[in-house]
């Protein structure tokens, strides 16, 4: 057998290949979705307790503060592209979106600066949770995280 025949030829995986759909890849997606639905759960499933707790608390603090200060929690029937973007950001908090809804029983009030701050708090909580879910996904795939 020649030297060349023993060399490994790198092959790029296409999204539909068997390797790309391996159990570890499926598990990574499961971790990411779990992390999105419940902030911190993606890390908790991988026994990253410190990160799980911090993600849960930071997203939770921003959501509770944002809803308590009567920030604008966007809905699916927005008037323009900014409302849609705001809705996507708010949805990033996963189940905490409904927590914010339940806390904000008097509705949004952005006529004062507090409501404006609170709107940013809610959107930031969503984006932060999406970042954490992506981080959990990368960790589940075995990448350095």
């Amino acid at each position: 057998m020649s030297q060349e025949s023993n060399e490994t030829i790198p092959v790029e995986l296409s999204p539909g290949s068997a390797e790309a759909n391996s159990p570890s890849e499926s598990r990574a997606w499961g971790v990411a979705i779990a992390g999105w639905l419940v902030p911190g759960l993606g890390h908790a499933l991988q026994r990253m307790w410190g990160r799980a707790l911090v993600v849960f608390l930071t997203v939770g603090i921003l959501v509770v503060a944002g809803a308590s200060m009567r920030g604008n929690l966007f809905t699916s029937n927005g008037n323009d592209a900014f409302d849609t973007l705001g809705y996507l950001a708010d949805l990033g908090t996963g189940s905490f979106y409904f927590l914010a809804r339940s806390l904000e029983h008097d509705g949004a009030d952005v006529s004062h600066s507090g409501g404006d701050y609170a709107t940013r708090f809610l959107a930031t909580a969503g984006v932060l949770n999406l970042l954490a879910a992506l981080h959990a996904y990368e960790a589940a795939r075995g990448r350095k995280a």
Partner: protein
Amino acid sequence: MTLASGESFTHMQAFLLFAAVISVAFGFLGRRQRKDRIKYILWSFFLFLAVGIGIGWAMYPFSR
């Protein structure tokens, strides 16, 4: 600004809360070692304050 509970936040308090919470999250997600995390959190918090206050001062001439 008033919370639903009746307590209130000043602009500065809201700004500090935001900076602290995001810095802690970034520190824990971005670094693994405890010492690195603390350094990253403090540096991130400082940059939030510096940029926020800097932009505030830059906008001051246009506030009236």
